């Protein structure tokens, strides 16, 4: 058999994926930041030596990084070529977090390792980890009010943090002098570098075994085949232009919605994504950089066709018109802290809403689509120590042809788990009054949306400041094919006897809290799928027994009338459904 028989190809493809998975696992298990260790907000991949194109990325990595790291690798290679970054040597590891150099937001810090095989540069290994703080005007980095990137934290161009295997203490000192709670960063930095070393060792074994030429040839072939698979998927979509719109509540500074206008054109075996007509760059931090915008499109398409391998070939049939002049292609010094967590999810939502018109059997109604970032920073008088607490939240997923959406699903762009309430209360001076399913939040439909979360957290000791970057406060996640929208996000601040709602609904920062004050959050439900009047009345009755909806909602949303004992009144239901339908 030739060097590239079908089997060798399949074995090398699986082997490259395993290199990435092992890097991901090593990184999470040894990390300190709970954002990485518990929430898995990190990703690892292999990238082309000359172009930075994605060779392979782990299934266990955060989806939003699916496309971004190939851009940051490309920028790194460019800067090395221009003499603006030092040339690579074995044992070097570069650090970079500049959003405009193929990044996301400043908290996502990348490490890049040039991979040498027997002295020759073969490819790049890169990982991204979300650091719990990178300096800037608010603890945790999710400022809702920043108007320039300098306010968001420390920005690093690609510099060698490790030179020939040894960490540079001067660069380390610059970093730790500019971030909060710096004493724990040494653990994360060592973990992030060690994870790349794990990958280096496994990839060396793979290349030793099959030979450099064979592996290189296989990488090329795997890429072509991924493109072929994606083209085959695209070919199943009817030709046409599918338009959608999605809205970010506001940029946090100017209280106006930001519009994403999308036209998806399917022709032959390519899909073209055109964001012309989207809002211009904004003053607040809801700008997206191009790398994140592209990645959001890629991850949305992969949610629709999950069996496509993760490499640059899969992206080839996806043409994205560069969204110049819009908030989806921000340049220095536009603030960008909301791009990875929120704007990316509105972009994915626009992709879902457009393609739901074409292939409704493969796309769900809109999911909650917010990371629900809530940061609380202060000093705990009991421990006499500062803290930054993060709470992320899920929401309902969209109804779909197979069933109802799940409740408290993870953000579209993430795979991060929330920390248990018991862990939060161990670490921080807070008490959760409730952490519950948000009743009534799932959008009505033939298949209804899943439910959001309703939680309420009380400050037990000292003073603190609360900041949020969430979304879908103005409009709920849209339903499709006649399904209703999921409930919008709600934040309420209980201070003393006053209850207030932030001006920007889902975004605010530095809200002062005292002992006994509470923050209440209700996250969005998923959109409904199909006509709610076609939903099986018995399922509606079950949902009422479970307390998901009230009997009144069963009637008004689903046209189902229940008897006193909770069972379906079939005659009254039929009458109500036909009457309500006529009046609609």
């Amino acid at each position: 058999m030739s060097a590239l028989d079908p089997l060798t190809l399949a074995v090398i493809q699986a082997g490259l994926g395993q290199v990435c998975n092992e890097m991901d696992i090593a990184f999470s298990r040894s990390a300190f930041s709970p954002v990485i260790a518990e929430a898995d907000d990190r990703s690892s991949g292999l990238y082309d030596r000359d172009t930075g194109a994605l060779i392979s990325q782990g299934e266990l990595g955060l989806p939003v990084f699916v496309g971004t790291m190939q851009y940051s690798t490309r920028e790194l290679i460019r800067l090395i070529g221009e003499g603006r970054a030092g040339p690579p040597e074995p044992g070097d590891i570069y650090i970079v977090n500049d959003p405009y150099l193929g990044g996301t937001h400043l908290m996502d810090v990348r490490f890049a390792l040039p991979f040498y095989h027997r002295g020759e540069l073969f490819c790049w290994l890169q990982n991204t980890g979300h650091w719990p703080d990178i300096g800037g005007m608010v603890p945790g980095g999710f400022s809702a009010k920043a108007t320039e990137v300098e306010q968001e934290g420390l920005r690093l161009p690609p510099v060698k943090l490790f030179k020939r295997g040894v960490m540079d203490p001067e660069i380390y000192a610059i970093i730790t002098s500019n971030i909060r709670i710096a004493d724990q960063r040494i653990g994360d930095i060592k973990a992030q570098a060690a994870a790349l070393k794990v990958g280096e060792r496994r990839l060396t074994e793979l290349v030793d075994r099959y030979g450099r030429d064979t592996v290189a040839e296989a990488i090329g072939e795997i890429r072509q085949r991924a493109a072929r698979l994606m083209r085959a998927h695209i070919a199943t979509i009817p030709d046409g232009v599918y338009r959608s719109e999605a809205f970010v509540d506001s940029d946090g500074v100017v209280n106006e919605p930001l519009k994403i206008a999308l036209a998806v054109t399917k022709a032959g075996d390519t899909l073209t994504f055109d964001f012309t007509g989207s809002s211009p760059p904004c003053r607040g931090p809801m700008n997206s950089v191009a790398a994140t915008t592209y990645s959001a499109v890629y991850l949305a398409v992969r949610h629709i066709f999950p069996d496509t391998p993760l490499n640059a070939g899969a992206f080839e049939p996806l043409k994205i018109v560069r969204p110049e002049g819009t908030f989806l292609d921000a340049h220095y010094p536009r603030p960008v802290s909301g791009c990875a967590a929120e704007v990316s999810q509105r972009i994915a939502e626009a992709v879902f809403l457009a393609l739901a018109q074409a292939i409704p059997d493969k796309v769900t109604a809109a999911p909650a689509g917010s990371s629900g970032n809530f940061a609380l920073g202060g000093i705990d008088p009991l421990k006499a120590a500062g803290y930054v607490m993060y709470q992320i939240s899920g929401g309902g997923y969209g109804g779909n042809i197979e069933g109802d959406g799940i409740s408290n699903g993870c953000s579209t762009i993430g795979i991060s788990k929330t920390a248990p309430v018991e862990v939060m209360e161990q670490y921080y001076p807070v008490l959760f009054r409730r952490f519950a399913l948000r009743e009534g939040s799932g959008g009505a439909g033939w298949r209804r949306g899943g439910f959001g979360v309703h939680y309420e957290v009380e400050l037990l000791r000292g003073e603190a400041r609360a900041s949020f970057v969430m979304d879908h406060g103005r409009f709920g996640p849209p339903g499709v094919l006649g399904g209703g929208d999921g409930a919008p996000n709600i934040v309420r601040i209980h201070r003393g006897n006053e209850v207030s709602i932030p001006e920007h609904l889902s975004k605010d920062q530095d809200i002062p809290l005292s002992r006994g004050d509470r923050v209440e959050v209700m996250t969005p439900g998923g959109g409904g799928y199909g006509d709610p009047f076609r939903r099986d009345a018995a399922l509606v009755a079950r949902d009422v027994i479970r307390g998901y909806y009230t009997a009144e909602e069963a009637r008004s949303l689903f046209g189902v009338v229940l008897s006193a004992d909770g069972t379906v009144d079939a005659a009254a239901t039929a009458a109500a459904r036909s009457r309500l339908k006529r009046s609609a």
Partner: protein
Amino acid sequence: MRRVVGIDVGGTFTDLLLYETGPGGERVRLAKIPTTAANQAVGVLGAIAETGVAAADLDLIIHGTTATTNAVLERKVARVGLITTRGFRDTLELGRRTRPRPYGLFGTFEPLIPRELRVEIDERMSARGEVVVPLDETALAAAVGKLAGMGCESLVIHFLHSYANPAHELAAGAIARRLWPNEYVTLGHALLSEYREYERGTTASVNAAVQPILDRYVRRLQRELEDQGFKRDLLVMNGNGGTVSARVVARDAAKTIMSGPASGVMAAAATLAQSGIKNAITYDMGGTSTDVALVHGGVPQVSAELTIDYGLPIHVPMVDVRTVGAGGGSIASINAAGMLQVGPQSAGSEPGPICYGRGGTLPTITDANLVLGRLDPDRLLAVSQPVTVAQVRDAFGATLAKPLGLGIEQAAAAVIRLANTHMAGAIRMVSLSRGHDPRDFTLFAFGGAGPLHAVALARELGIPEVLVPARPGLTNALGCLVADLRQDFVNTLNTPLDTVAMTEVGAILAAQRERGIAINAEEQSEIVETTVLHGADMQFRGQTHLIRVAIPRADVSREELQALFEEAYFNRFQVRLPEIKAVLVNLVTSVIGRRRSFPIGALIEGGGRAASAAAAIIAERELFAGGRWHLARVFDRVKLPIGARIEGPAIVQQVDATTVIEPGSVATVDAIGNLRIDVFGASA
């Protein structure tokens, strides 16, 4: 005469091993009959009858059951009610913000306890175990009555921070037990006293959901055994690889989940110990999935973070078995990109592989083994319509070989190797990802298909030796026969090591030890020696993941524990962090009552062995390996003499498995009847 029986009820077969010792020497009897799914007890009694020994003449029965695992996976569980802290009735439904798969937004999740059966009452503890809201006993009694009235058969009482202070759960439990119509009341902290309300609550709800099922089953089995005159002890396997008395097993019913795979690993550990092997990877390949686990330093690795199904973590210690969806029934196909793929679709046992003749038309791993001569075409499992090798070859030709531009054999060989690559990935995950190099391990192969693939798989991984035990298809029953009595305990401290009161550490460990010894005392006559293992789950301050550190004595010193932790951390992650404080999160103790050992060598009776390896040859057959056909000798396993040496290519057949010895590998029958295969023998 003393007779001990190990019986494992698997998905397809009920397997039995009976071990007799007496003045006249020792003897092993075997039985294998189809599992009776509706009432597993029928199959258990049938297997005993098959041995020809009356139940009345048995001294001890150790039983492994899939009753609880299957009940959860199929959601055929008892109706359970939950009483919980106000504001937290949805903990079990919301989980921790996940989705079933990393990509794709489809999927559903149904909690084991539906929402209308979850009731909130006023009570609250703080994270430090202080009462924030007192327990409302009146509301509690009302909730108990309400849930009983709604037809719940078992009850869970799960309060926040009960690991820190169980007072409310204990008080509520005492009230509930007076009112509840049966014994099925589970307290949240009873199975594990560890933080993480979703995982702890789910573990408790799984326990309550399977408790009535297991209790009824065990009582019925006991009664039927007694009807046949059996008056002695019945032990039941747990997922931690130990056993408990049938009289108390239902109390912690969740611990019996995954006990089948655990018994296989315990059998492997016992066999390896008697073969003088310390480090092995166990590899159990069946019809739909493959289980792998690690035995390191002679000890099966145990984890308390396993998940049995999406959204159902069970955080009680279980033998750390990883499952991949590749088995004999996995289907091979060509995807839209023209790539060969194996799985994840499986033909299962219905319709099964093409060669089973039950209507399967898609090529599977088993079919590939048949095409390549690795399986005996004369021993096809065809039941209704006989299938010929030619028919299977045609299917490979049309669906795989032609589109790939390969010969039929090459296509079948590619299927085998790709399947091996997937299984190799799982093995790397249990070895490399924990800092172990698979090349330092022996591959212990069992299950129906394990020995077929093991040598080729070992080559893929660089593993130097494969061990195929005497009875690969009865390994789980052997696990029952050799399992120890084992109790595990966890208590959460979550305190920096430099401030923890070491006297408290000593007191907790001693109390855990006492509890374990008290439970094992139920079966004191079986125990020849008791071993107590203490450990600590530790981390550097600020981390969330834990690393398990073995503690030599209950009165360990602070400095000693610090040093042990630093060493364990370095071994795992190759990083030292002198800048950061260590935190003692959990104290754990395992109390292991060692039972009399079983001589592995007795599994194949000496009397049937031939004088030489040559005399054990029963046939010759064409075997495709290394890219060409070979004429391979076929040996009868039970006739192979101790010390026999077989050079590959060769095939060793026995009733319950087929072992393929690839060209270049050399097998030897060791002193206790294991087949030991030197994978790279000829090339060394």
